[in-house]
């Protein structure tokens, strides 16, 4: 499981590094510590999600940071949501959405995407 508190590292590295603050509604951690993601998992499906999606959709991922601007920051991490369906996740991954690029089949196969979408939609495997 992942931590409930959306912890935010206040460090920014677009072409360098500088101090920054968190998106509204997220808790600010120490400026240069605590940006690490929880990379743990407790099922093969969760492990696949972490491997393929976690870098953007767990703590301090690009997707989490941007989604926190558009919705309740407490639900900015996909794994905390209850409104995701298999079809929606599949469409978002393959079609891209907002700033999220399309996920290519070389990176995530159709079979892998089915597992990940099922995990996020909380559908029993």
């Amino acid at each position, binding site marked *: 499981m992942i931590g409930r508190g959306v912890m935010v590292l206040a460090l920014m590295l677009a072409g*360098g590094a500088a101090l920054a603050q968190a998106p509204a509604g997220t808790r600010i951690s120490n400026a240069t510590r605590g940006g690490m993601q929880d990379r743990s998992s407790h099922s093969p499906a969760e492990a696949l999600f972490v491997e393929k999606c976690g870098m953007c959709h767990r703590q301090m991922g690009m997707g989490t*940071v941007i989604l926190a601007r558009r919705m309740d920051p407490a639900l900015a991490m996909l794994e905390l949501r209850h409104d995701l369906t298999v079809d929606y996740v599949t469409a978002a991954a393959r079609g891209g959405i907002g700033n999220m690029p399309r996920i290519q089949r070389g*990176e995530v196969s159709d079979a892998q995407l089915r597992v990940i979408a099922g995990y996020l939609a909380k559908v029993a495997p």
Partner: protein
Amino acid sequence: MIDPAKLAAALRDFRSAIGADNVFDSDQDRTAYSDHFSPDETRHQPGAAVAPANAEQVQAIVRIANRHGVPLWPISRGKNFGYGGAAPVVRGSVVLDLSRMKAITVDEHNGTVLVEPGVGFFDLYDYLRARKIPLWLSVPGNSWGSVAGNALDRGVGYTTYGDHAARICGLEVVLPDGGLVRTGMGAMAGSPNWQLYRNGFGPGWDAMFCQSNFGVVTKLGLWLMPEPETMAGIDFEFDAPDDLGWAVDTLMPLRRAGIIQQAPSMGNWLRSAAVMTRREEWTKDPAPLNDTVISAIRKRFNIGWWSVQVRFYGPAEIAAASMAVLRRAFDKQPVLAMKETHWQQGDPPEGSPFSGVPVSFPLANANWHGGRGGHIGYSPVLPPRGDLAMDQFRRTHALYEKYGMDYHASFAMGERSLTNVNQLLFDRDNPEMMTRVDRFFRDLVADAHAHGYGEYRTHIEYMDLVAATYDFNGQALRHLNQRVKDALDPNGIIAPGKSGIWPGRWREKQA
């Protein structure tokens, strides 16, 4: 440009060689492998993609491509955002997607790793942590991408191992004719020194496969930093634009002397704002952000006009002595703020890229203008002198103003150079802005060229433009590259146009 009949024939052969499940040629696939930062994704859209599982399959694909005259565009993981992503220079090329090749071999004792191109920074990070191997990565600001691909494109990170190409030690390469070579000590079958001694015997070829189209790298050796006993440093804030000059002149002697062994990057206020906020939170005025807004940004993030972070790695005594030298260098200098930071073994993980922790959030700057955004990088290299840095800053800043764009820049201090990394943040759904960005970029390249400065890396759209600025003796180096290209790749199969290197048959078409 690519004959549809030849492509169809090649795809048939690819399917029988690597399985139909690993050949992608639907419209959705072609779009997925395009540059998603581009205002017109069709401009560099590939014709298909193939995803081999190993070097043998790469060899088979290269041979098939030769047979049918179909160009391949190798990608490691295709996350080279700001430089074209997965997309090829030549529309209709077949993307050779190496994402599925994910083998990792770590030599913990010697601090080296051998990675296949599909291994991302997060993958390698997870691998090391799961096994409690005390080696640190050097990660780029977007760590979603490939360890090997980033090193081959001369990407940079934040630790003393941040010049990634300089830490490459030994490659395995599929040549354009389908042959397989290993460089350095790997040229000897079964050598235990492949990842230990770079040169081998005779000419060294590792650099030949960086930013080139001379082969397809299928394995890459890289040195990793042994976890240091201590990491210590100072975060500096500077109040005025003019502080750039003296700050560079204060830091560079320490960099040259080897006191500072990572590349400090001095960047402006927009780096923070663009990642953590959207522009509309600050102003509705489309003109470049004014001093009032800049002050508000600086106040909110408690930062200077410029910020720079310096870090030392090693035994506590050495880090402490280095810190004392750094403090002395800035003694009585008009620094706005200095904040010291210290980590030692036994502390909780430091948790930032300064200790090799991979991150993806800097990519959030694509959202600066709201909606679907993106960026391209403009990164000329200049001598490491404060007056030249100030001159570069003033000229570039004036061009940002001229083209109505928000200034976003940093100056990364190499051992003997400065790399002025500028981000052009845009809204790709704004055609007027995208036209402006293109003219702006061309003006920037021309401005650098007029001063004898060249870019270290560029977007697929501008590879010819930048290659042409390397103009000594009638672009003699480009001609050499093209002679090598023709010798190794007579059919022009591997990545035509990469780094401005065109195979003979493409040059004839262009003539």
